[in-house]
């Protein structure tokens, strides 16, 4: 007997919070607003825990149909929720990390204007995100998908008075539309060819299909889905919005642009594993995009000096890892990394926020330094996060990254090699950040350093804090840091002995057999025979990946601790390359030159001046004018005289009676 879970409550609770704060928050005190927000997001978390408690008694996948929604012939979409191991992992990550970040935000946003607005959006985001991960069909997922985009847009532009924030919001919105376009076409293809959008139905109708050796329907769908995922999860070529999105308040960066929303693409690809497994070409595309993004973003991360930008590129890079995992068929490894990443990247962002908070709104690492002793809690928690992402055992990042690299190596050594290189870069830029922020001498202005942010509304404007010198954050911000730090340390242990993989195995059960068929890489087919050899190879690879992590640490230590003057010299020597990387390979500029400007030109000349003003406006103005004229004439029918009204009725009646009689005679 499967208990009834009432899954619908989980997304609805944050929605209720958003509604209450949205409608009445303006009149509430800050205490009341934060109570409401925390209560409802906490309730969602509690509910998720309860569901997790029921887990063993469920027959999976558990589907809960709330209400019928749309139907047209045999095509049917319901408001229904789908729950399996994968949903559970996502659910725990989103509600758990989400709740912690809600707590943190109370402290972080306390002095900002629009306090209630912020929590309304944040709860709204939770609602859409939970809809996304609990949906039982692609259409409901798409609603959540669009909804998180909307919430993200609102939150990036939260300091909407600042131009750059508003622009960043718009950029995120537009770039995401490109991805959504791909996603939508994929959905149309699914409807057209399989007549359903339900995961269960689709799995049923796609499973019997053969693996496509050449590009076919499933390949097309897979690649289009990946386009959608690339938009949401900031992969090449659609990653450009994410670094700009750091204009939003830091808790937003932590929740939406690191821990949850940006991983929606990974979740979506994993959810669609049935399709990808049968489309090896699409899988390869996913893996290549992931590999390239991981490496590319890591190189940019090295040169960034804004503490949040470093983390942003790091996020892009880590998402690349997750896609490598999906692309080589190791979906559970991708999801594993998604989970640990949510812990340590959420932690890093929150800690960065705490640093920014401490130094009065400054985000430039060159103006920090030596904060180790001044903000010890922040320092130690950030240390945990940094070591975790650098892949130092036994912290969380080590296990998940290692798993992905190992799985990648079984498909192609190229993925592995680039992955290892990226791991080295990751370790380097993270420790660079760590050293620059916490060690050496404090390079900021000792007094009145709040002035950096004066006059700029937003930019995390902690004007009021700035004047008191560097100070530790309040307990309400530190508590989430500590919890996330603990999770960053121990979160990876669930993967020891493939426990995590086995847990998710029922979801991806077909993966093992299918991928063995679809990738005839020699290492794979040979594997069962050389189990011992495989084990030793795995151990070797693990040692290498730990090695590069340590190497990154040593290099950063050398360059940014022992001899901090060296980086400038190196940059000078590698002038051209350094500048290219510093300017993020000029990708924004290239996009502007080859896409945005021609589009603006075309739309100005052709669409606006030609079609819009010339044709549509003229027609519309003309027809509107005409309609009003007709309308005015028609008023005179309405003389107010009963007899003339009766005349109209009688005339109408006569017409209809004659017409019907004529038809009757005519059909004879």
């Amino acid at each position: 007997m499967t208990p009834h879970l009432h899954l619908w409550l989980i997304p609805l609770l944050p929605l209720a919070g958003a509604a209450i704060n949205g409608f009445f928050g303006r009149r509430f005190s800050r205490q009341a607003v934060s109570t409401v927000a925390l209560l409802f997001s906490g309730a969602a978390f509690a509910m998720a825990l309860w569901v997790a408690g029921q887990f063993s008694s469920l027959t999976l996948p558990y589907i809960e149909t709330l209400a019928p929604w749309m139907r047209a012939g045999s095509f049917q979409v319901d408001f229904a929720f789908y729950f399996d191991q994968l949903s559970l992992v996502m659910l725990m990550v989103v509600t758990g990390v989400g709740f912690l970040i809600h707590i943190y935000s109370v402290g972080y946003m306390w002095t900002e204007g629009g306090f209630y607005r912020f929590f309304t959006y944040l709860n709204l985001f939770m609602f859409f995100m939970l809809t996304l991960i609990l949906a039982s069909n692609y259409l409901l997922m798409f609603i959540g998908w669009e909804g998180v985009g909307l919430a993200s847009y609102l939150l990036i532009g939260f300091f909407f008075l600042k131009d750059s924030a508003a622009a960043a919001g718009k950029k995120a919105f537009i770039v995401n539309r490109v991805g959504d376009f791909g996603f939508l076409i994929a959905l149309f293809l699914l409807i057209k060819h399989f007549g359903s959008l339900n995961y269960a139905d689709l799995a049923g109708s796609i499973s019997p299909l053969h693996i496509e050796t050449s590009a076919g329907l499933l390949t097309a769908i897979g690649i289009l889905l990946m386009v959608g995922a690339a938009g949401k999860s900031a992969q090449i070529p659609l990653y450009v919005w994410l670094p700009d999105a750091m204009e939003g308040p830091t808790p937003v960066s932590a929740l939406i642009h690191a821990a949850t929303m940006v991983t929606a693409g990974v979740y979506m690809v994993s959810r669609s594993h049935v399709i990808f497994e049968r489309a090896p070409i699409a899988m390869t595309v996913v893996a290549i995009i992931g590999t390239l993004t991981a490496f590319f973003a890591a190189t940019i991360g090295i040169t960034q000096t804004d503490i949040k930008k470093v983390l942003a590129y790091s996020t892009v890079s880590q998402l690349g890892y997750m896609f490598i995992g999906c692309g080589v068929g190791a979906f559970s490894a991708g999801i594993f990394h998604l989970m640990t990443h949510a812990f340590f990247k959420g932690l890093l962002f929150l800690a960065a926020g705490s640093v920014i908070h401490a130094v009065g709104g400054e985000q430039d690492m060159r103006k920090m330094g030596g904060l180790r002793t001044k903000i010890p809690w922040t320092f130690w928690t950030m240390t945990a996060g940094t070591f975790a992402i650098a892949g130092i055992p036994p912290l969380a990042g080590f296990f998940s990254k290692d798993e992905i690299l190992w799985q990648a190596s079984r498909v192609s050594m190229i993925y592995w090699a680039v992955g290892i290189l990226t791991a080295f870069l990751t370790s380097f830029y993270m420790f660079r950040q760590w050293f620059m922020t916490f060690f050496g001498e404090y390079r900021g202005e000792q007094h009145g350093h709040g002035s950096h942010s004066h006059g700029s509304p937003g930019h995390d404007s902690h004007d009021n804090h700035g004047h008191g010198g560097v100070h530790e954050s309040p307990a309400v911000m530190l508590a989430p840091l500590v919890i996330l730090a603990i999770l960053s340390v121990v979160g990876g242990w669930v993967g020891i002995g493939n426990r995590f993989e086995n847990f998710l195995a029922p979801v991806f059960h077909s993966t093992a057999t299918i991928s063995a068929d679809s990738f005839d890489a020699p290492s794979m087919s040979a594997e069962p025979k050389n189990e011992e050899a495989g084990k030793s190879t795995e151990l070797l690879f693990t040692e290498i990946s730990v090695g590069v992590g340590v190497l990154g640490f040593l290099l950063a230590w050398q360059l940014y601790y022992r001899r901090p003057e060296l980086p400038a010299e190196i940059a000078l020597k590698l002038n051209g390359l350094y500048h290219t990387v510093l300017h993020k390979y000029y990708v924004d500029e290239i996009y502007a030159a080859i896409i945005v400007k021609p589009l603006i030109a075309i739309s100005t000349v052709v669409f606006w001046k030609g079609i819009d003003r010339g044709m549509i406006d003229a027609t519309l103005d003309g027809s509107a004018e005409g309609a009003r004229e007709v309308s005015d004439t028609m008023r005179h029918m309405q003389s107010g005289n009963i007899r003339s009204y009766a005349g109209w009725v009688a005339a109408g009646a006569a017409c209809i009676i004659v017409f019907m009689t004529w038809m009757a005679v005519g059909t004879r």
Partner: protein
Amino acid sequence: MVPLSYYLILSGILFACGVTGFLIKRNIITIFMSIELMLNGVNLSFVAFAAQWHALSGQIFVFFVMVVAAAEAAVGLAIIIAVYRTRETLNVDQVNLLKL
């Protein structure tokens, strides 16, 4: 025996008279009586059809129609009085505040 069509034609004429009366008369009460004329046209055809189909029901319907018409008359006269009180006229051509 008078053929059915004669009755039907008569009923049609009665109905048409009613419609015409509605359209050309100006006094509200006369217009109201025209409506009664239309209903009587209908009654006649009910009775005629009842005879044709040998179904008693057609004749019973006439009673229903008469009852409903009586109810309508009662309400109608009340409404007409209300109009007269506010406008002091029964000429429909002058009851035209609401227009355009």
